[in-house]
């Protein structure tokens, strides 16, 4: 097998894994989540592969539901972030020097503040919950993609066919939407996929810290933060399985994004 086939297969496996988790999380019934005090704090068994928690709820079901929530938050937040990046990147590159300086300053500002600090501030100000987390992640993850898009647009803007289009009497808006935007889609798609793991991890970490989703939602961050209380009494499975699952999902997304980048890069088309 050559490298391209291997890349295709890993991409396919990562995609299957992610779809499997989401489908599992959405189709699994609530009955395995109901309180059952007979089997509370059971260690992993065939019946409950991830064990049960202090209320007798199946941890596998909770983990899958939690991952589904996390992936949902990740998708929405990453898409919003990519949209912000696209708009600001395009504006910076097309609206003249003053706008460019202002947006570049904003990018530097957001890159200079640690993600998590800005995220906690925004989420806390908006009152936490799903809305706060999504807004927080969307507002903190756009700068690096915006910078890439700005550079890309600047390069396209100096392309001869774009300059010719202007001399043929086409407006800035016409040129931006017909010539420049279609060239940005590969960059945008890859940037979007690479944003997911960041978004998911940050959602989990601020939920863990208590600034994110409410404890009623089975988000992975909530599960992990609950498990901390029982970890010292030897119930390792409460933290171990959800944590490992989160890592695997993040790796799968990362692999997916990296592979998409490799597959769409024309210089690597023949490897």
């Amino acid at each position: 097998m050559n490298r391209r086939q291997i890349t295709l297969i890993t991409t396919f496996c990562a995609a299957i894994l992610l779809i499997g988790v989401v489908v599992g999380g959405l189709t699994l019934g609530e009955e395995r989540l109901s309180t059952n005090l007979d089997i509370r704090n059971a260690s992993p068994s065939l019946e409950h592969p991830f064990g049960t928690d202090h209320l007798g709820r199946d941890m596998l079901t909770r983990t899958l539901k939690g991952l589904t929530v996390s992936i949902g938050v990740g998708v929405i937040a990453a898409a919003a972030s990519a949209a912000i990046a696209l708009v600001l990147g395009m504006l910076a590159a097309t609206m003249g020097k003053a706008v460019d300086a202002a947006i570049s300053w904003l990018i530097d500002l957001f890159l200079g503040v640690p993600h998590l600090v800005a995220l906690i501030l925004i989420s806390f100000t908006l009152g936490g919950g799903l809305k706060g987390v999504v807004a927080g992640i969307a507002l903190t993850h756009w700068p690096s993609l915006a910078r890439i898009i700005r550079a890309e647009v600047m390069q396209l803007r100096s392309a001869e066919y774009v300059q010719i289009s202007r001399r043929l009497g086409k407006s800035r808006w016409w040129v931006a939407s017909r010539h420049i935007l279609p060239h940005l889609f590969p960059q945008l798609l890859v940037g979007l996929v690479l944003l997911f793991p960041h978004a998911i991890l940050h959602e989990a970490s601020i939920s863990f810290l208590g600034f994110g989703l409410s404890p009623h939602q089975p988000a992975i961050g909530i599960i992990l933060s609950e498990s901390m209380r029982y970890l010292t009494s030897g119930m390792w499975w409460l933290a171990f399985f959800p944590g490992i699952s989160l890592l695997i999902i993040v790796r799968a997304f990362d692999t997916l994004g990296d592979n998409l980048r490799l597959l769409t890069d024309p210089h690597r088309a023949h490897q």
Partner: protein
Amino acid sequence: MLLEASEIGFRYSKNQWVLRGVSVAIRSGEVVGLIGPSGCGKTTLGRILAGYERPHEGSVALDGKALPATGYHPVQLVFQHPEKAVNPRWRMRKTLAEGGGPDEQLLAALGIQEEWLSRWPNELSGGELQRFCVARALRPQTRFLIADEMTAMLDGITQAQIWHAVLDYARKQEMGVLVVSHEKSLINRLCTRVVDLTQFC
């Protein structure tokens, strides 16, 4: 109509003038050659005339009036490398339509075949692409054409065909042409007058 560049000065870096005190005038229907050694500003002058660059000194005027900054530019430039001058993600029909609807007669004169219109740019050769670039620039609103080494990378037959079509069109539409080229023989063949940039180097 008269396209007039007077006392043009232009520089890319601070203290190094590429052009200084250059004046050129072209009348409608005239075919003027522009020659000079490499790096003496032939292309830059062409870009200034077609509105791609703003001169740091002097001005370009069409019939005494400044050229429009937006809208269709009456002075069109055809570049040396056609593969850079078309959007690689557009089919040729769309590229051709960018300047306005295609003129069947002109397409025939330039030897553009119907089946090329539905192709992507990377499915055409340089000569075929350059015909499209010429066709795109030749609209009724185009009063002057700057041909910057327009046929330098083409074979003799293609060169002859394209120039025949362009000169024919220029005669019919009373369009002025500025031929920027290294090739003395081509300039002698086409032009009624020659401007030499050597004196400004």
